[in-house]
């Protein structure tokens, strides 16, 4: 597994080998079992009847059509798309400028502000979700799609700020000064210098917020009404009220959920190297001139 090009593993003592074997073993066990868990759900969602045998008696796709009809998956998916894209867009819109100021400027109260942006990520969603839902119900936003968007924005905006700040810190401030020297206004400098340089960071942040928002259960659960449920919440209700429905159609719905998130995550991984989220490696050390 090591795969390092450097001659670091020369002292391959038994301890090192045992350690490497242990890591590899743990990882294999983890991956194999998760693979089987997914396979179990997939098998069940296509199974005609599956009782205590290795494989079901027969195969069918009726559970998918049934789930689609019964749970109104079409409208749920549409609500999910609306919520997720609104959250990503708004989070970028308020998050990126804030990250810029936090990365570049030093001002009184900055630490307090950082704390304000860190807290929503440090406090469990249920803790602030319950008071927030109470407030949103009072102003009659909860139960609507706007309430769901606002609620999901609370962790999303700080997340964008947190991801974007190191990206901005990496950009040489001299580039901005150069743009200034040539007479660019702040807005022009932002669009023509910063945004192109930040594109990878913005892409990374938006894809991460997207995946997180699809998966974020608690806040949507607390604020959603019957016609503003996203896929996770609908799925939870489907299981929770399981008695009425065949478990196989819940499995089918869970597979749809997995495929939706998996698609987006694979897209994300094509554009974002997950190892570069926090900071980037210098792959070629600068020669000492």
């Amino acid at each position, binding site marked *: *597994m*090591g*795969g*390092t090009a450097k001659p*670091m593993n020369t*002292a391959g003592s038994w301890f090192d080998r045992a*350690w*490497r074997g242990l*890591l590899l073993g*743990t990882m294999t066990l*983890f*991956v194999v079992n*998760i693979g*089987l*868990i*997914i396979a*179990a*759900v997939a098998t*069940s969602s296509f199974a005609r009847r599956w*009782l205590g045998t*290795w494989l079901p008696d027969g195969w069918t796709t009726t559970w998918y059509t049934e789930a689609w009809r019964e749970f109104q998956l079409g409208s749920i998916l549409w609500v999910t798309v609306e919520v997720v894209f609104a959250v990503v867009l708004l989070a970028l819109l308020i*998050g990126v*400028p804030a990250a*810029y100021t936090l990365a570049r400027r*030093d*001002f*009184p109260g900055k630490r307090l502000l950082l704390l*304000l942006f860190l807290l*929503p*990520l*440090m*406090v*469990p969603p*249920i*803790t602030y979700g*319950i008071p*927030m839902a*109470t*407030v949103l119900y009072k102003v009659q936003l909860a139960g609507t799609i706007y309430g769901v968007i606002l*609620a999901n924005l*609370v962790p999303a905006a700080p997340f964008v700020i947190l991801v974007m700040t190191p990206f901005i810190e990496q950009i040489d401030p001299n580039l901005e000064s150069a743009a200034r020297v040539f007479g660019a206004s702040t807005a022009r400098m932002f669009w023509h210098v910063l945004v192109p340089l930040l594109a990878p960071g913005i892409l990374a942040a938006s894809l991460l917020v997207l*995946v997180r928002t699809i*998966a974020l259960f608690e806040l949507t659960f607390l604020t959603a009404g019957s016609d503003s449920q996203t896929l*996770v919440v609908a*799925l*939870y209700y489907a*299981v929770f009220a399981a008695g009425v429905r065949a*478990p196989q159609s819940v499995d089918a719905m869970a*597979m749809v959920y*997995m495929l939706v*998130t998996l698609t987006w*995550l694979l897209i994300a*991984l094509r554009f974002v*190297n*997950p*190892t*570069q*989220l926090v*900071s980037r*490696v210098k792959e070629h050390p600068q020669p000492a001139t």
Partner: protein
Amino acid sequence: MTTATPAVARAPFDRALLLVMPAAAFMLLLFIYPFIYGLLLSFNPKNGGALANYTHFFTTDNLWPTIWTTLKLALPATLINVGLALPIAYKMRNKSRYQRWVTTILVVPITLGTVLIAEGMLIYFGPKGWLSQFLQLIHLYTGPIRLTHNFWGVLISLVISGFPFAFLLILSYITGIDPVLARAASTLGADPKAQFRHIYLPLLAPGLAMCFCLAFVQAYSVFPSAVLLGSPAGPTRVISIAAYEAAFEQYDYSLASAIAMIMGFVQLIIVAAVLGLRNLWYRGPVSGGKG
């Protein structure tokens, strides 16, 4: 940052500060205000004095033990996730053709969602599931497997959903450390173990602390899996279930806010302890910057 002070003093108002305003205003409106509202509401119970909710919480038998139930689940889950992720991420720190591949595989569980994990575990670990059939086939263990509807079910599901996240975060912190530092150390005769102890670990401390906190928040607010995979009336009655029941089953928003506040308070104590521990280890910037 003493060099920046004169510039701030000269210019009475920096217009760049305007850029941070929308985000700050939003957080004040939707995070701080509801929080204060909830805090005040929690001291304004349906009946009884200002502290009635809190005394109710700490004297009711199905409320106060939820704190321990939650911690007993969340702390081991976080330790396992971070403890597993650190050595594996350290192994993967160098760019290789495996890195991207393994990362992709390890990231897949993020997409599963609690419900799929729960359903899958119920089938897979079930009495007639593949695991029990397999164990019977190789005559290793023939008794019933009790890994769902109890503590272990929730713990396993927390590890499945939490590990990839911890792994990704730690990997991105580790790869952010300049490999030149390790190379310099190996020139001076440090083996990988020594490099890890004296270079990576100290530089990783803030990242690890951050990762621990974020992983802990995830595990601590466990809600759906505690209901679906645990026994929500008994050993996995976590604090978020208690808060939810108060709010949406008894419609006592005041009590629910009080439970939410207690929940946040316990959480912040843990986070503060972890961040305090970090300072014992580490002083300095993580990336080594321009040095």
